[in-house]
C-alpha cells in the first residue's frame, strides 16, 4: 500500500516535470520571437531597440538551458517572476485569486454531488421509472446548454427579471459575508448545473452495473434487509467510478470556470488568465497553467489513492 502510494507520487511528480518542460518548450517551439509578438500585438511595429530591451527583461537573451533551469527552479519556489504588463508579482496574484476559484469549484461540486448522486441512485434502483425518465431528461437538457449560456440565462432570469440576486461581482467574505454569499449563489449553481448530467449519468450507470453483480444476490440470499443490501453491496461498490468522474470534473472545472468567472465577474484565477491571454502576458499564462496542471495532477493522484482505499483489489 505505502509502496504503491509512493510510486504513484513519483509518477505524478514526473508528470508534473514533463508538463513544466512542455509549458516552457512551447515558447521555444512556436515560430517567431515572443518579445516581438508581444510588442506587435499592440498594433504598432516595434523598434528593434524595444524588442531587444524586452528580450533582456524576459530573460530571452540568456542561453536556453539557463532559462529552462531558472524557470524550473522558480516554479519549485513558487516564484514565477513578474507580469510583463504591470510588473506585479505573478505568484502573489495567483495566491490571492486561486482561493476564490477553488471556493467556487468546491461549493458548486458540493451542490452537484448532493443532488446528482442520490438522484442517480434512485433512478437506477427504479430504472425505467418516472424518476429515471425525469433525471435522464434533465441531464440531457443540461448537457446541451454550454456553461456560459446557463450562466447568462440565469442572470437574465434571476438578476434581471426577478431581481433576486446580483448579476455578478465579488465581495470579500471577511467584510461582507452576506454579500459574498449572494454573489456566490448564481455562479455556483451555474457550474453545478453544468456538471450535474455527468455525475448523474455516472452514478446511475454505476449503480445499475453494481446491481447486476452476483454478490448482490449473495447478500439477498443471506437475508440482509433491502436497505442494507443497497447500502453495503450496491452503493459501496458503485462508488469507485463516481469518485473518479468527480475527480476528473474537479480538474476540468479548473479550466472551465474561466467562462463562469467571466460571465459573473468573479475575480478568480481564470479572469486573470483571460486578461493575461488577451495581453499576451506569456509568463503569467505559463505560471497559471502550470499551477492549474499541478493541482489537476494532484487531484488525480488523490483519486488514485482513494481508489486503492475503496477497492482492496486495486494495486496501482
Amino acid at each position: 500500500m505505502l509502496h504503491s502510494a509512493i510510486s504513484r507520487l513519483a509518477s505524478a511528480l514526473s508528470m508534473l516535470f514533463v508538463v513544466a518542460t512542455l509549458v516552457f518548450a512551447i515558447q521555444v517551439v512556436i515560430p517567431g520571437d515572443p518579445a516581438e509578438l508581444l510588442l506587435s500585438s499592440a498594433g504598432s511595429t516595434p523598434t528593434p531597440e524595444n524588442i531587444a530591451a524586452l528580450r533582456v527583461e524576459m530573460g530571452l537573451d540568456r542561453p536556453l538551458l539557463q532559462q529552462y533551469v531558472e524557470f524550473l527552479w522558480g516554479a519549485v519556489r513558487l516564484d514565477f517572476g513578474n507580469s510583463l504588463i504591470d510588473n506585479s508579482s505573478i505568484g502573489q496574484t495567483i495566491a490571492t485569486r486561486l482561493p476564490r476559484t477553488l471556493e467556487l469549484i468546491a461549493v458548486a461540486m458540493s451542490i452537484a454531488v448532493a443532488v446528482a448522486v442520490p438522484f442517480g441512485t434512485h433512478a437506477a434502483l427504479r430504472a425505467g421509472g418516472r424518476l429515471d425518465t425525469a433525471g435522464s431528461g434533465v441531464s440531457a437538457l443540461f448537457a446541451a446548454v454550454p456553461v456560459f449560456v446557463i450562466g447568462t440565462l440565469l442572470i437574465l432570469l434571476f438578476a434581471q427579471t426577478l431581481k433576486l440576486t446580483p448579476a455578478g461581482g465579488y465581495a470579500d467574505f471577511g467584510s461582507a459575508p452576506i454579500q459574498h454569499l449572494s454573489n456566490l449563489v448564481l455562479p455556483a449553481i451555474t457550474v453545478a448545473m453544468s456538471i450535474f448530467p455527468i455525475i448523474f449519468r455516472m452514478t446511475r450507470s454505476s449503480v445499475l452495473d453494481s446491481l447486476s453483480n452476483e454478490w448482490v444476490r449473495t447478500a439477498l440470499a443471506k437475508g440482509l434487509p433491502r436497505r442494507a443490501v443497497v447500502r453495503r453491496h450496491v452503493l459501496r461498490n458503485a462508488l469507485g467510478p463516481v469518485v473518479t468522474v468527480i475527480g476528473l470534473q474537479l480538474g476540468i472545472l479548473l479550466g472551465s470556470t474561466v467562462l463562469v468567472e467571466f460571465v459573473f465577474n468573479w475575480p478568480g484565477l481564470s479572469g486573470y488568465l483571460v486578461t493575461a491571454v488577451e495581453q499576451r502576458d506569456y509568463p503569467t499564462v505559463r505560471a497559471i497553467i502550470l499551477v492549474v496542471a499541478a493541482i489537476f495532477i494532484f487531484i488525480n493522484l488523490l483519486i488514485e489513492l482513494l481508489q486503492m482505499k475503496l477497492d482492496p483489489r486495486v494495486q496501482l
Partner: protein
Amino acid sequence: MTITSASANPSSAFRFPLPRIHPRLRLPLAIVAIVLVAPFAVPPLLGIDPNAMSVLERFAGPSLAHPLGLDEFGRDRLARVLIGAQASLRVAVISALISCTIGSLIGLFGAYFRGLAGFLSTKTADVVLCFPPILLALLVVTLMGPGTTTLIWVLSIIYFPAFARIVYLEASRVSQLDYVVAAKALGARPRRVMFRTMLPNISGPIIVQLSLTAAAAIVTESGLSYLGLGVVPPDPSWGQMIRGARAYMERDPLGIIIPCVAISLTIYSVNLLTDRLRDVLDPKGLSGGIPILSPRRPKVQAAPQSATLEADTVLRIDHLDVATNTNGTPIKLIEDVNLRVRRGRCTALVGESGSGKSLTASSVMGLLPRGVNVTAGDIMLRSHNGETIQVTTLSGEDLEAIRGRDAAMIFQEPMTALNPVYRVGDQLIEAAKIHRSVSSAQAREEGIEFLKRVGVNDPVRRFDSFPHMLSGGLRQRVMIAMALSMQPGLLLADEPTTALDVTVQAEIIDLLIALKNSAGAPGILFISHDLGVVAQLADEIAVMYAGRVVEQGPAATVLGNARHPYTRALLQSMPAAHEELHASRSDTLPSIGGTPPLPHERPAGCAFRDRCPHAVSVCAEVRPDLTSVDGPDHLAACHLTRGSAV
C-alpha cells in the same frame, strides 16, 4: 462518459450500421442533417445580408421581413444566427475530423506495434490530458493569436487524446481476437491488418466518440468566442453574439435568448444522435443487467393450502409454474415442477443450462429476476421453529426473514459471489449480526468456528482476508460456511463445483458429503448438469429439460435404470474416468446433438423430440406426462416408456 465496448463478434455489432439505417437512428440523423445543412442552405434563400445595418431600426421586434427582429446594430437576427452557425459548425466538424484521424492513427499504431510506439502514443495522450481543456486552448491562443485557424488547431489538440485512448484500448482488445491473429499469421501486411481488419471492427466506438467530440467542439468554440478569443469579428458566431447581446440584456432579452437556444438545440440534437448511436452499437447498455433488487414484487395468488409438510421434509414444491411477462404475452419458463427435499438428504436437480433448474432454486428463495414470477403452484418450506411456510405468499420483509435462516444458498461462481471490497469474515457474519443482533466479537468467534468446520486452514487469518486473496476453492468454502452460519434447514447449492478445478471440485464434494452425514444436517437441493458429481451426493434425482421435469426418482434407480432418452444421453455424455471430469466443465453435451429449445420456441408435443434418436410421430403431437415407470417412485415423461422399453 465512457464508451463501453460492444460484442466481440466481428460480424454483427461493430460493422457500420449503414447503409440500412437503424430505425432508432433515423430521427436524430434527420435532425442533425437539418442542423448541419440549414445554416448553409437557408441564408441565400433569405437574401438578407447578415452584416447590413440599419441603426434606426435597432432592436426592432419580429416582423415579416425579419422573422426574429433586428439586433443592437439593426442587423437581421435570423440571418446572423444562421451565419453564426456556419462558423461554429465548420470549426467543430473540421476539428473533430482532424482529431479523430490523428488520434485513431496514434491509437492504431500503438496497439499494433505495442512496445515503444504503444508507450509513446499513450503517454502523449496522458500529457495532453494533464491540462484542463480550456486552459490548453487559452495557452495555444496566447501563442497563436485568436482566429478560426487557431481554433481548429486548438480543438484538434484538445480532442485527439481521447481518440488515441479509445482506439488504443479497443484496438488492443481486437488485436487479440482470432481473426486478427489469423490475418497476421496469414502474412497480411500491417497496413492491411490495421485498416482492413482492425479498423472496421472498432468503428463503433470511434463513430460515437466523433459525435461526442463534435458536440464538445461546438461548446468549446462558442465558449472561446464568448471570451473574445475564438472567432473574431466581423465574422459572426454564436458565442460572440451572446457576448455582444449581454450589454443590452435589459433592453433586449430576445437578442441573448436566440443564440442561446440555437446553440443548445444544436448540441442537444448531436447529443441525441450520440446516445442513440451508443444504444444501437452497444445494445447491452440498454438493459443494464438484470437487477434482482426490485422494490416491488407482485403478490402471488394467495389461497395458501393449509397443507403442512411431512415430518421428514424441509422443502416441497408442488406444481410450480414460473413465467416471464416482458412483452405482454407470458412465457412459461418452468412448468409443473414437483420436488421434495428431506432433512439430511440430498435431492439433485439435473439438466443443461436453460432447463430451469436455477430458476426453481431462485423461486424457493424469492429471488427471481425482475419480470419473472411464480404463476402457479406451492412452495412449502420448513421454518426454523418447525412451522410450514408458504413461500409464494410472502413478500418483502417476510422473505428476508426466511432467507439465510430457513433456506440458504451457495452459488456457482465463488469468484463473483463475494463482494470484493469487504473482508470475507465480515461478509460471513454480516447476516448473523443483523438477524440475531449478536455482538461483533461473538459473531467473529462463531464465524471463525464455521470456517474451521468447512475445512479452512488458518481460519483466523482467512477471516481477515479479502476475497481476491483466496483461491476459488477457499472462497467456495467461505460461501458454504456463510450458508451454514445461520443453521438453515435447507441448503440450495447451485452448481457449486462447476467453476472450480477438478481436484478442488472433489474436495468441495467431499465437504458436502461430510456435511450431509453430520448431525443436524440440512436438506440439500443440489443443482448440477454433471451426473458424475450428482451420483456421489444425491439421494433423489430430478432431471429437467426445457422447464419440465422429464425423469424423477431415487438416485440409484434413475442412474441405474434411466428411462427417459434425455437422461440416458446425459449419462452417456458423462466422462467415464475421474481425471476427465474437467471435460464436462462446460455446459455442452458432446453426445447430444442440438440445443434445447428456447422458452418461447418450445414446440407442442415433447420438447426433446428434435434431439431424440427414438422420436416417433406421436412425440410431435402429444406432450408426454410424467408417469410412473417400473415402480411408483420412478417417474418419466416419455411416450416410449409405456409399452416397450426404449
